[in-house]
């Protein structure tokens, strides 16, 4: 079972349908987390949402508690949650992108996806990961081909994955493939 924490976003259920088509998924509002169910889940997914990671301290706690014990996937704000918990800084970006489709390239051989291939991704974010981002276990594996902004991080040993773009958006034609590869890993 996948447990999806909804940070009251208007895209969460697009993600829920994607996940549920792969493995049964429970969606829960950030303010109504069911810790028993969460504990039983095989994968925890952190949804997109407004604001920044520090607005949602419970999510950071959950991340720290379950990192390395369960598979964790973060989308957009969820991605930012992961890098924030790993000591990264989230800052405003110059060009704010809401509803944009960008070309994204896989740049690392540590990625579970094929290095040097690229894909189209839908983006809805005002904030980004400040770089350099230094982490022992995490690698930035995808970047926007135009702005070079970090689009994905992966830590395959602890099974933590994050996308700054939205695999759930209709602007990401191969979104399901990305999610499926992670869930079935």
């Amino acid at each position, binding site marked *: 079972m996948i447990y999806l924490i909804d940070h*009251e*976003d*208007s*895209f*969460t*259920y*697009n993600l*829920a*349908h994607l996940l*549920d*088509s792969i493995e049964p998924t429970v969606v829960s509002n950030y303010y109504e987390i069911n810790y028993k169910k969460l504990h039983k889940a095989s994968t925890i997914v952190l949804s997109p*949402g*407004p*604001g*920044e990671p520090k607005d949602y301290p419970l999510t950071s706690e959950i991340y720290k508690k379950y990192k390395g014990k369960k598979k964790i996937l973060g989308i957009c*704000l969820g991605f930012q949650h992961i890098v924030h918990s790993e000591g990264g800084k989230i800052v*405003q970006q110059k060009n*704010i*992108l*809401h*509803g*944009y*489709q960008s070309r994204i390239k896989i740049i690392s051989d540590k990625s579970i996806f094929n290095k040097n291939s690229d894909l189209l991704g*839908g983006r*809805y*974010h*005002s*904030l980004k990961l400040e770089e350099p981002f230094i982490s022992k276990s995490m690698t930035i594996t995808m970047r926007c081909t135009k702005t070079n902004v970090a689009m994905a991080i992966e830590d395959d040993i602890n099974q933590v994955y994050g996308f700054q773009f*939205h695999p*759930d*958006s*209709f*602007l990401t034609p191969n979104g399901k493939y990305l999610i499926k590869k992670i869930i079935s890993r």
Partner: protein
Amino acid sequence: MLNNKEYLDKLYQSDKSIIIYKNDTGFEVYTDFSKKIIIDKKNIKNFLNIQSKEKSSRIDGLNCYIGFFGYKLLCENIGIKLPKQKTTNFYSGLFYKPKTKISIGKKIIIKSTKTNFRNIKTNTKKYSKLNKNFNLNLTLQQYSKLFDDFSKNIKQGKTYQIKIAQTYSKKGNINAIDLFWQLMQINESPESFLIRDKGYSIISCSPETLLLKKGDLIKTKPIAGTLRKTKKINHNKALAFFRRNEKETKEHNMIVDMERNDLSKICKTGSVKIDKLKKVEEYRDLFHYVTTIKGVLKNKITNHDIISSLMPGGSVIGCPKISTIQLLNQKEKSDRNIYTGSFGIIHSNGDMRFNIMIRTLLNFKNAIELSVASGVILGSTAKKEYNENYIKAKSLLDLFN
């Protein structure tokens, strides 16, 4: 005895309560209401899930309720409390059960369970002519201030897109029927409607279908993207404009993903599909950019679940819905009233059709009001959006001399 046409004319000239709703082939006119139910946050669930399902008429077309939910009620229904705002204390929501239905298409067809429904008295009330001078609640300067504040909120990631509403108002009383048919001549929009009741009237040329539910199939048709019409621009040029225009495209993309989300809440996994992506629709003063999204409802989803998931309609608020409504509430000084609420029909078999109440004029307590909104999105300017609002209001403002 009056023939159907004469009866209809006399009905218009009477002081009877009446509702007119545009459909695919013409108009439906409803009258002789046996029930009138005020809807508030306490009874909305019961009304949708129980009361509206009662089958009380032997004529199928009359087993329905027609009416509207105001914006405030729809916010309260999803757990958002609105702060104290300037209000006219108009109905929070109101639904009518008809005993007579007149379908205007190629022919006029009347169905009624009322005896002697053709007996009606003509009203002699005279209306004075109204001029075009409306007050606007926000100056360009005030609008720009809001625009800047919300732009900051977007940069902070608190909202991705937010729609500022403006209200045109003036004193006076309208002859709703006359104005409605005038409006239909110049701008017959797919979700047009009229309500004339004692004490108030509403006329609308809304273009936006929020939901269409038939059996377990559901559809929504969000509009995002507006282009002013000129002699030089035809349908194809409008399409080329929208495709090229980054601001319109990203605004539209966001609404498509948001409406997919709202449908996904209540639909079976994998059933939500984009039916027609990014089509251009043509109206008197403008072109709109429209997408149709559909899905198959999950088992055990109630009409209240559907209303709660889709209303208030996202395209007139911004995204994400909840945080954006909260930001709007901090800044909008007067209540939106019926604006961005929904008008529509609920059949006793559970089928529903609802619009979003935009391009909608309310006449209540000797005051006429009309609101419009456009989006704060980075890359646009306050002045441009301020002017876009005027184009949206124009076909209704033009009804006044």
